[in-house]
């Protein structure tokens, strides 16, 4: 059944890359906003959370305006490097990353703010550098919250439809992720293919949820048992 496996692999690739990008940017901004006071801090927070509340089509439109071949950044990319993100899987990654960013960011900020400042101070008095404090104290303590957010981000990226459709189009084998393939199959009246794709999607989602739930929960139970 290669017809239905191609969109599945593409979806996992796009969602994986998008989650990595959202993780890096989300954690960095979350730490910055949780630790540093600067003017306009809450505005940055609002801006990074906006994709959560805005319709994906609105985001898609913004992305086209910025990254389209005649967009602010898109035109420069095209003229300088001959690259365009429109109708490429990288474009799909961009759309999914933007849509899932708030989920990592919000969870990570809450997690960092929940870390006891005294533990970080203690680490500093024991001679750790700022980077050392972050890697060996703050990050491990906030890790579970960050992972929970990252999980949600991955799930959201897997199901992304609106912004992806607008930026990356619907190219079978290139940018047609599972959600787009289902839409396409239903539009064309291909109910059998739609049913197969829907089953695959449901199965993959359940498996991911169960496994991630196991990873997150067993840690707690191990501590209880100890």
């Amino acid at each position, binding site marked *: 059944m290669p017809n239905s496996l191609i969109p599945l692999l593409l979806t996992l690739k796009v969602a994986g890359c998008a989650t990595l990008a959202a993780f890096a940017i989300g954690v960095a901004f979350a730490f910055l906003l949780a630790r540093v006071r600067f003017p306009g801090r809450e505005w940055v927070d609002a801006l990074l959370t906006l994709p959560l509340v805005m319709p994906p089509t609105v985001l898609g439109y913004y992305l*086209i305006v910025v990254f*389209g*071949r*005649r967009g602010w950044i898109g035109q420069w990319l095209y003229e300088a490097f001959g690259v*365009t993100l*429109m*109708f490429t899987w990288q474009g799909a990654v961009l759309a999914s990353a933007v849509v899932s960013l708030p989920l990592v960011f919000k969870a990570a900020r809450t997690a960092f703010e929940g870390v006891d400042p005294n533990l970080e101070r203690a680490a500093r008095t024991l001679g750790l550098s700022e980077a050392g404090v972050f890697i060996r104290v703050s990050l491990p303590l906030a890790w579970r919250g960050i992972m929970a957010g990252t999980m949600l981000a991955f799930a959201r990226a897997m199901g992304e439809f609106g912004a992806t459709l607008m930026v990356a*189009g*619907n*190219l*079978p084998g290139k940018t047609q992720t599972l959600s787009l393939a289902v839409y*396409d199959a*239903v*539009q*064309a*009246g*291909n109910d059998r293919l739609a049913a197969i794709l829907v089953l695959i999607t449901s199965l993959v989602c359940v498996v991911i949820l169960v496994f991630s739930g196991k990873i997150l929960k067993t840690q707690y139970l191990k501590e209880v048992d100890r």
Partner: protein
Amino acid sequence: MKRKLVVCVVAALAFFGLSWMGPSRASAEQELIVSAAASLTNAFQEVGRKFEKANPGIKFVPNFAASGALLQQIEKGAPVDVFASADQKTMDQANEKKLILPETRKNFASNGLVLILPAGSKAPIKSPQDLNANEVTKVAIGNPDTVPAGRYAQEVLKNEGLWEKLSPKFIPAASVRQVLDYVTRGEVDAGFVYSTDAVIAGDKVQVVATLGKHKPILYPTAVVAATQKKDLARRFIDFVLSKEGQETLSKFGFGKP
């Protein structure tokens, strides 16, 4: 604090309650739902306005999408009264599935297929053969599964022996109007649309070739079998075929059937 909460909840309930009741009162006037091919968007909006003027108390409700998508909606039970597709094949499928009343089926317009480029494009494209050039990387085409314009374009390219060679460059679109949108925004190098679509886009696109080598593009319409408003639906089809309806269509560049 508690009082504020109560006020908020009551206000919200009142708002939703009222908005629920709103549409049911408005439906005193009769609605005619017309599912029409995306390429008919502008023309049918005006035809609909004129139909409303000629028939007071009737509300014209258009539903534009790719003909194939509209067929699926009707098959799944969408409450549609009139169906107008951009090709004979989609209407034939509707007929086979007994979704339309065959005796009401009439051809009402014709169209042409053109190759367009974004305005200001300097790509050396004068014919479909030129799409083979290396600097052409993206060619928008309606998805042939659901979009008649894509099927006509496919037919042209197959007859020219170009279909296989060009297929890595295709950007499939959900309707002919999406192809038009991709070209006007300059996201693709070229696209296949109807000549009427190119007219709508005006100076945002340049027409480089009018294509032959495809079946005549004839638009059929018919009353949907499941409708409760057969007489009204027939009246609309008569209006489209009337002098006034045909003049409106030709104003938007459509040919006689």
